[in-house]
C-alpha cells in the first residue's frame, strides 16, 4: 500500500509533465534551482568540516531549526498546492491509517522541496567526516530531521484543513498571509540588522534551540562530538518525542478529516439587490465593468492585487525612512500604477471558461475591453492620484507633483491599453476560480515570462515621454516641465487606451471562440 501511494505520487508528477512542455521546462528549471541550492548547502556543510566543532554545531542547528520552521509555515501559505495525496480523495478507499500516513510521509520526500530537504538533512553528516562515528550518528539524526520536517508540514496541514473547510475562512486566511509576504523586505532587513548587531549571541541562540523541539534533532551529533553523551541522549529523546507528538497530531487530524469532508458555507445577501449592476450604466460595457468591480472586491485572486495598493506605499515609506531619501516615496504612485496596469495582463484568464457567457451573448470585443479597463480605472485613478500628491505633500515638494501624477496616470492608462490587447490574445495559466490565489500552477511562471516581459517593454516605451518630462522637471526645477508631464500623461495615456481598446476589441471579435477553446484546454 505504501509503495502504491508513492507510485501514485510519482505517476501524477509524470503525467503533469506530459500535459504541456512548458510545465516540463518549468519543473526542470525549478529542479536546476533546487540542485544549485543543494550544491551550495552541501558545499557549505563540507566546508564546516574544516571549522571548529562548535561553529559546525551552531550553523547546523540554526539552519535545521529554520528548515523545520519553514516546513511548518509554508504549507499554510501554499494550502492546496500538493493535492495528489489529498486525504479527501483517498477517503473512499479502505486504507488503514498507518500505511496511509507512511505513504504520505514518503511521498512528501519525492517532490523537489522534499528531496532537497532530505538530501541536505543527510548532508549534516558531512561536517563530521573526520570522525566517522559522529558522522554515522548524524546520518541517523538527518533521517529523523527530514522526517520531522515532512511530518510537521502534514500535521499543520491536517489541522488547518479542518479549520479551513469553510470557503470564507479559507479565502480570508489565504489573503492574510499575504501581508507578511509583501512586507518580507522590511521584515528581513529588520531581522538581519538585528542579527548583525548580535552575531555574538548566535551560539547561545543555537544552544537554546538545541534543546527545543525545532533544533534538538540537529544538535545531537554536535553534543556527541563535544563529548557529552548524556546531553546527546537527552536531545535525541526530545527529538523523538517531538516526532511522536507531531505524528499523533497528524494522525488525529487525518482521521478526523477522513470522516468530515469539506463543506461549503454560504452567506446570503439581501435578495432584490443588484449591487453595482444597479449603479453603473446599464450597457454591455457598464455591466462588464460592474461585474469586474464586483470581482475585484469579492474574488481573492483579485483582492490579492488590491491588497498591494495600501501596502506598497507603506514599504516605500519604510525604505525612504531607513535610507533617509525621499525618492522611494515619490515612486509609490508610479509603482502602484504599474502594478495595477500590468495586473490586468491575464484578465480573461481569470474568468476561465465563464468567459463562454460573453461569447454566447455575442458581446462586442470593444465593450468587453472598455468594461474591464474602466473597472480598474475607477479605483486605480483615485489611488495613484492620492499617492502621487500625497508623496509630494509628505515631502513638502510640490514641484514634481504634476509630472509625477502624469507619469502615474500615463502608466495606468497605457498599462490598461497594453493589457487590453494581450488579454484578448494570450491565455495565462492562473489560479482557477476558487483556488488559493497563491497556487501557481507548475509552469505558470515560466510560460508567463515571454509575453509579460514584452508587455513591460512596450509599456516602458509608451511611457518614455512622461518619464523624460518628469526627469527634466526634476533636473531643471522648472514647473512648466512638470505640468507638461501631466498633460502628456493624460493625453497620451487616453489616446493609447482608445487605440488599445480598439485593437484588443478587434482581436477579440475575430478570435473569441479560439480564446475560449484555449481557456477550456487550460481549465
Amino acid at each position, binding site marked *: 500500500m505504501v509503495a502504491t501511494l508513492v507510485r501514485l505520487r510519482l505517476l501524477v508528477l509524470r503525467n503533469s509533465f506530459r500535459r504541456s512542455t512548458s510545465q516540463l521546462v518549468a519543473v526542470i528549471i525549478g529542479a536546476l534551482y533546487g540542485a544549485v541550492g543543494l550544491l551550495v548547502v552541501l558545499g557549505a556543510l563540507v566546508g564546516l568540516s574544516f571549522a571548529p566543532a562548535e561553529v559546525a554545531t551552531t550553523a547546523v542547528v540554526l539552519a535545521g531549526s529554520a528548515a523545520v520552521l519553514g516546513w511548518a509555515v509554508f504549507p499554510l501559505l501554499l494550502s492546496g498546492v500538493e493535492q495528489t495525496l489529498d486525504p479527501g480523495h483517498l477517503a473512499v478507499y479502505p486504507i488503514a491509517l498507518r500505511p496511509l500516513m507512511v505513504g504520505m510521509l514518503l511521498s512528501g520526500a519525492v517532490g523537489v522541496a522534499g528531496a532537497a530537504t532530505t538530501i541536505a538533512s543527510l548532508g549534516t553528516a558531512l561536517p563530521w567526516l573526520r570522525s566517522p562515528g559522529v558522522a554515522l550518528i548524524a546520518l541517523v539524526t538527518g533521517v529523523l530531521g527530514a522526517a520531522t520536517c515532512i511530518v510537521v508540514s502534514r500535521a499543520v496541514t491536517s489541522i488547518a484543513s479542518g479549520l479551513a473547510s469553510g470557503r470564507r475562512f479559507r479565502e480570508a486566511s489565504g489573503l492574510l498571509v499575504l501581508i507578511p509576504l509583501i512586507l518580507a523586505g522590511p521584515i528581513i532587513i529588520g531581522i538581519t540588522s538585528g542579527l548583525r548587531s548580535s552575531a555574538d549571541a548566535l551560539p547561545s541562540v543555537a544552544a537554546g534551540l538545541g534543546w527545543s523541539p525545532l533544533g534538538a534533532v540537529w544538535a545531537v551529533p554536535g553534543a556527541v562530538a563535544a563529548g557529552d553523551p548524556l546531553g546527546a541522549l537527552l536531545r535525541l529523546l526530545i527529538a523523538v518525542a517531538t516526532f511522536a507528538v507531531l505524528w499523533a497530531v497528524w494522525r488525529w487530524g487525518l482521521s478526523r478529516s477522513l470522516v468530515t469532508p469539506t463543506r461549503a458555507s454560504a452567506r446570503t445577501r439581501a435578495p432584490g439587490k443588484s449591487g453595482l449592476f444597479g449603479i453603473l450604466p446599464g450597457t454591455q460595457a457598464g455591466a462588464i465593468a460592474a461585474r469586474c468591480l464586483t470581482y475585484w472586491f469579492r474574488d481573492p485572486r483579485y483582492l490579492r492585487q488590491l491588497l498591494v495598493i495600501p501596502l506598497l506605499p507603506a514599504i516605500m515609506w519604510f525604505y525612504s525612512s531607513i535610507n533617509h531619501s525621499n525618492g522611494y516615496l515619490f515612486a509609490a504612485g508610479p509603482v502602484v500604477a504599474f502594478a495595477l496596469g500590468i495586473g490586468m495582463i491575464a484578465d480573461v484568464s481569470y474568468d476561465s471558461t465563464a468567459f463562454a457567457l460573453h461569447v454566447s451573448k455575442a458581446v462586442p470585443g470593444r465593450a468587453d475591453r472598455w468594461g474591464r479597463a474602466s473597472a480598474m480605472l475607477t479605483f486605480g485613478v483615485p489611488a495613484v492620484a492620492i499617492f502621487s500628491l500625497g508623496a509630494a505633500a509628505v515631502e513638502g515638494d510640490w514641484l514634481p507633483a504634476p509630472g509625477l501624477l502624469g507619469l502615474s496616470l500615463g502608466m495606468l492608462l497605457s498599462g490598461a491599453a497594453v493589457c487590453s490587447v494581450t488579454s484578448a490574445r494570450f491565455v495565462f495559466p492562473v489560479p482557477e476560480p476558487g483556488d488559493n490565489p497563491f497556487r501557481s500552477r507548475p509552469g505558470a511562471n515560466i510560460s508567463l515570462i515571454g509575453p509579460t516581459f514584452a508587455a513591460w517593454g512596450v509599456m516602458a516605451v509608451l511611457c518614455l515621454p512622461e518619464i523624460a518630462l518628469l526627469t527634466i522637471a526634476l533636473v531643471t526645477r522648472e514647473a512648466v516641465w512638470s505640468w507638461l508631464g501631466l498633460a502628456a500623461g493624460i493625453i497620451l495615456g487616453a489616446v493609447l487606451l482608445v487605440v488599445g481598446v480598439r485593437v484588443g476589441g478587434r482581436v477579440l471579435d475575430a478570435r473569441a*471562440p479560439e480564446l475560449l477553446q484555449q481557456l477550456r484546454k487550460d481549465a
Partner: protein
Amino acid sequence: MAGDDGLAIRIRGLHKRFGEKIAVDGIDLDVPSGSFYGLVGPNGAGKTTTLSMATGLLRPDAGEVLIHGVDMWRQPLVAKAMVGVLSDGVRLFDRLTGQQMVEYAGLLSGMDRPTAQQRTADLLRLLDLESAGGTLVVDYSAGMTKKIALAAAMVHAPRVLVLDEPFESVDPVSAANIRDILRTYVDGGGTVVVSSHVMDLVERMCDHVAVITAGRVVAAGSVDDVRAGSTLEDRFVELVGGRRVGEGPEWLRHS
C-alpha cells in the same frame, strides 16, 4: 426571415478535429422550428462539440450552421441573438449572486436595465430561485447552478434554446418544473435542443431525436420514426452497440 425554411437549426457537413482525434466527422442535422429536439449519444460521441459549434462557441474546421437561415459563423451577432445556450462543463461567473448573474447575462445581450431587471425577477420566480437570488452562485447546489445557467440562457428571449445536459444533477421536482417551462416555451413557438444520456427522459419529453455516435449521426427524425416500434433505449443500444452480454467475472458473485 429570408432563407428560413422552417428549420430552427440547419447543420451541414460539420467537422472538428482535436489533434489526432476526430471529434465530429461530418454531421448533418435539421432541427425543425418549434420542435423539442433530443440529442443522444454515448460519452465522447461529440454531442458537446457539435452543440458548441452550433452555438458559436467553437469554430468548426468545416461545415455550415444556419440558425433560422442565418449563418452562425458569418453573421454571429444576428445568429447568437436568436440562441440561448446552456453549456455543460463551463464555469459561471460564480462570485455574483444569482440575481446579478442573470441580470448580467441580460445586459450582455444588449437589453436595457429595466427590462433586464424585470426579466430576471420573472425568471427567478419561474425557476423557484427567488429566495436564493441573494446567494453567491459559488455557494449554490449543483441543481440550482443548472437552473441559474438556464435562466441566463433564456433571459434574452431566444427563438432557439440549446441545452447541453440540462438535467444532470437536478432533483426530480426541479427537473419536472424545468420540463414544464421548456414545454411551455415550445408551445409558444420556441425550439429546444437538449442533449442527454437519459433515454427515458428524451422519449417522454422530445418529439424529435438524433442519435450521435463517434462523431456521426446514425439516426435522426421524429421519436416514433427513430425508435421504430421498440423503446428508444433498445434502439439506441442497437444503433450504438457496445452492449456487453453475459455475466460478470466469477469473483464478483456473492451468491
